[in-house]
């Protein structure tokens, strides 16, 4: 079944970043292998003579993916809002992956600034994808601000640690059963992606785990399979876990059984 994000329907539940690849060609091959229909992009200062950004933008446009511009590196509400406004003009999309970074070591969101920036951007017609934590109260406030998608972290950006707070992520899913939830950041292995999807998350956003793999294209394919497998498992309704063993082979008729 397709995923609906602000009225846009996509088949792939894997969103991929465009940074850190060994080359632009490998980035494009990885995008294709992942099946991702949405790719994150960013904004940086441009020199009038070098124009590095123009070449990158041509590549991405030709690939046919839908872009989700981020506000990476922004540490204040003002920076994030201005960056989002510039992104909307450049990329011609109301979508923005809103990042307001609160701490350098963990790159964790400044959730206070995030909520305020989300409120401003939503009121200006942006369709905000907030990079947040698994905190339920923050999630409530982001939804009240006008966000229709939430993107909690699995672990710090680029750490590859997987799902650090399984209970928190499970609670968030249970609390907001109808809101599209995307695990964004911290995914290191396809098994992490599968685990998040098995919890009922709607999609996975990752970059480093593919870009920094020895073979990014093969890893992109692995993540696509894992994301699909996790989603299928969720829809198939996993069994309940239990503490004690329960024999799967029928007990009745067991040879030499005397009880």
């Amino acid at each position: 079944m397709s995923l609906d994000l602000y009225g846009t329907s996509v088949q792939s539940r894997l969103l991929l970043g465009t940074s850190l690849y060994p080359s632009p060609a490998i980035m494009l091959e990885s995008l294709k292998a992942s099946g991702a229909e949405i790719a994150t992009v960013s904004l940086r200062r441009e020199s009038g003579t070098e124009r590095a950004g123009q070449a990158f933008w041509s590549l991405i446009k030709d690939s046919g993916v839908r872009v989700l511009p981020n506000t990476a590196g922004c540490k204040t509400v003002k920076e994030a809002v201005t960056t989002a406004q510039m992104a909307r003009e450049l990329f011609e999309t109301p979508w923005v992956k809103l990042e307001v970074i609160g701490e350098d070591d963990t790159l964790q969101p400044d959730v206070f600034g995030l909520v305020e920036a989300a409120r401003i951007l939503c009121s200006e017609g942006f369709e905000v994808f907030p990079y947040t934590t698994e905190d339920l109260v923050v999630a409530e406030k982001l939804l009240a601000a006008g966000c229709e998608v939430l993107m909690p972290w699995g672990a710090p950006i680029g750490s590859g640690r997987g799902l650090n707070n399984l209970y928190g992520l499970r609670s968030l899913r249970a609390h907001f059963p109808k809101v599209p939830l995307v695990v964004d950041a911290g995914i290191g292995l396809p098994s992490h992606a599968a685990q998040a999807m098995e919890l009922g998350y709607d999609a996975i956003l990752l970059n480093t785990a593919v870009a920094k793999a020895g073979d990014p294209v093969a890893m992109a394919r692995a993540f696509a399979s894992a994301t699909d497998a996790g989603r299928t498992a969720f829809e198939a309704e996993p069994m309940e876990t239990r503490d004690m063993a329960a024999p799967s082979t029928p007990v009745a008729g067991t040879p030499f059984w005397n009880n």
Partner: protein
Amino acid sequence: MRVTVNGQPHETAAATLAELLSELNYDGAVVATALNGEFAPKGQRLNLTVSENDQIEVIAPMKGG
């Protein structure tokens, strides 16, 4: 007058943001701009006056996660 463009000092006689961009060889480039921290839309660059000590950002698409 002296302004700052992308964090670097720049001496200019440009009266508007559009003139400044042209002076810096951005003609035809896909860029977005901010003037003193505020978004400066493409359609307003002709009318936005550049003044001494202004801080200008000129940004373009880039890879991101």
